[in-house]
């Protein structure tokens, strides 16, 4: 597992806020993401569909699976094997890498084309493959761009949302061996065509395709892949080996359940009624087929998920990775995805990263929230994200993970609050002091006792009297 970068969220956030190019990219994307989803959801009414009923249905399907996950995993495994696939299991990221490399070696693979798999990001699979002499090529255009940049995706459905057209142009020029040209948005089709041509060569020459799975269908032992570009179809049709790396929680029972979730996923992600390509892949090439993999391997990964079952955070396992929570998050759009330090950004990342990498490795993330609940109100499977973040904050306190200074201060405050006379006396002094500091202004520009607090805002100041004093005065009048 790539470790989250401990305790540097503040530093990264400061950096991202000052990155003007990033800020411009985010401000451009935000209204598009929000507007498209709103339109997609509103259009449901034309078909007499109620989004809230669909959400309930989606929530119920995911809960049904989690309640008996062991049983569903066994059913899936049996049926996937019956269809001709091999089913392997990985406890953690290292085991993912070992298994994929082993499959690659057994089949003499020197290049693997990849369609988006978040689990492979959790495992840092690309680095492991490269170290083993196997070239990984990301084929989702956004993933390709971030791979060229040597970066991680900054969004789970729009991996390169943080990149400007000039940055993409510089990367393409370098990788494709040509001079940099001035580019405007009119050139975007030409740039996409250039990437298409380069990636087409890779599709045709790779021996192995690696994908995630949006869902695993228990009744048929199939993997469901949802893409717009068609890269998911390419990497599962052309190479002789197909490896699917996905989390154990991704199961849905039936094709009908899958159909219900498909009314939620694309709409919540991009506002589309359906993504351009939805593929259900079962087993290997059949007798008489002139194409398709001759070897299909599922790698079912735990990497911290099983521990969430029965915990206060079990609801998080319902997640269908649509990205709606980050698309509606004011914190995400102030910082972008990289500030979150690990694979998953936005509200779902603020919950998942500490849970999967260790609470002590991501202390700030559950606090990177305004508590506005925009995420919770758009989540298609009704995950109460702010509640889960609060519960994580509580857990930090229970486990004594908060910094010593904070614990001391809160301890002192708790003591003071139990001494009403002293509390009133001190509060009255403080109110006067703040008023005096502000002078004629309504707010303090820089507050010397806690300068960081006034870095991006002013501290508003009241009339110099405490509430108690004002209340008493009013009663007398």
């Amino acid at each position, binding site marked *: 597992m790539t470790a989250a970068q401990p305790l540097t969220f503040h530093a990264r956030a400061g950096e991202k806020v000052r990155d003007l190019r990033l800020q411009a990219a985010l401000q*451009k*994307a935000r209204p598009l993401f929000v507007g498209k989803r709103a339109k997609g959801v509103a259009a*449901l009414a034309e*078909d*007499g*569909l*109620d989004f809230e*009923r*669909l959400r309930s*249905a*989606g929530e119920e399907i995911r809960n049904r699976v989690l*309640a*008996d996950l*062991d049983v569903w*995993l*066994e*059913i899936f495994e049996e049926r996937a094997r019956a*269809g001709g696939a091999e089913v*392997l299991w990985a*406890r953690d990221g290292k085991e993912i890498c070992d298994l994929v490399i082993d499959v690659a070696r057994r089949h003499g693979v020197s290049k693997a084309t990849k369609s988006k798999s978040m689990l492979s990001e959790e495992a840092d699979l690309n680095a492991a493959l490269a170290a083993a002499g196997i070239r990984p090529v990301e*084929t989702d*255009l956004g993933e390709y*761009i971030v791979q060229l940049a040597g970066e991680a995706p900054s969004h789970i459905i729009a991996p*390169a949302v943080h990149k*400007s057209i000039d940055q*993409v142009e510089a990367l393409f020029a370098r990788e494709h061996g040509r001079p940099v040209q001035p580019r405007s*948005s009119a050139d*975007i089709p030409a740039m*996409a*065509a250039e990437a*298409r041509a380069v*990636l*087409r060569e890779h599709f045709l020459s790779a021996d192995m395709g690696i994908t995630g799975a949006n869902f695993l269908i228990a009744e*048929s032992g199939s993997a469901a892949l949802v893409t*717009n*570009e*068609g890269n998911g*179809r390419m990497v599962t049709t*052309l190479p002789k080996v197909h490896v699917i790396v996905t989390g154990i929680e991704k199961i849905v*029972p*039936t094709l*009908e359940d899958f*159909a*219900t979730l498909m009314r939620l996923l694309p709409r919540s992600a991009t506002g589309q009624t359906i*993504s*351009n390509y*939805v*593929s259900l892949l*079962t087993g*290997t*090439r*059949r007798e008489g*087929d002139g*194409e*398709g993999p001759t070897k299909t391997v599922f790698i079912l990964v735990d990497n911290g998920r*099983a*521990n969430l*079952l*029965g915990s206060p955070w*079990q609801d998080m396992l319902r997640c269908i990775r649509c990205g709606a929570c980050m698309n509606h998050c004011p914190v995400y759009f102030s910082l972008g995805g990289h500030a979150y330090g690990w694979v998953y950004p936005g509200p779902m990342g603020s919950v998942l990263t500490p849970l999967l990498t260790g609470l002590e490795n991501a202390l700030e993330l559950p606090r990177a929230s305004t508590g506005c609940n925009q995420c919770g109100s758009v989540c298609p499977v009704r995950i109460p994200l702010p509640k889960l973040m609060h519960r994580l904050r509580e857990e930090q306190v229970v486990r004594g993970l908060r910094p010593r200074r904070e614990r001391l201060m809160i301890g002192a405050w708790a003591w003071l609050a139990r001494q009403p006379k002293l509390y009133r006396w001190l509060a009255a002094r403080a109110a006067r002091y703040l008023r005096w500091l502000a002078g004629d202004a309504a707010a303090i520009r820089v507050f010397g006792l806690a300068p960081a607090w006034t870095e991006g805002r002013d501290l508003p100041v009241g009339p110099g009297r405490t509430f108690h004093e004002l209340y008493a005065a009013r009663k007398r009048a």
Partner: protein
Amino acid sequence: MSSRDEILQRVRAGIGLGDAAGRRAAAEAWMAGRRCGPQPFLGGDLLGRFVARAESLSSSVERIAGRRSLPASVAGFLAAGQLGSAAVIAPELADLDWAASGLSVAARPAVDRDTVGITGCFCAIAETGTLLLLSGAQTPASVSLLPETHIALVDERRIVGTMEDAFALLRAEHGSLPRALNFVSGPSRTGDIEQTIVLGAHGPRRVHLILAAA
């Protein structure tokens, strides 16, 4: 302990339930029940709905009287777009007289140099304007994927309402799932450079649907 057993043990510890046999039976019963979630109300005109949706997804649509007229209408479409006269076709369409319309076709899986791919489809879905294609010897998946232009023959009698209806039809006509079920909704697209939508990301740039009444 193997990874598999350890993971399943952790899952069981988290769930905290015994009675594996009873829970297994309940799961089997759920699958057998095939309960559908909330369904859209699509009205009676599935054909009209399908055409409207397909067009909104940037596919072009034309209608012909019957399957036999497919080569002639394909020839017309290719000529109008100056798309040449060669195509790779799904072997299931090999019985049609393509040469009579001046087309040279090859019935096989597609290769990179193919510029036009012609397929049928298992059925079409009105709710979303989607084609359902099954992989198979007669219907290779690459024909609808590698060429820049994908032309699909849709039998109007096989336009169903929803994805659930398509699954029901599939269960009725096929025992098990083929290697790949591909739901195709218009040309391939990407929005990964500055959120600008571009058609023809990795798959076809152009999708033309020819609806046959019989």
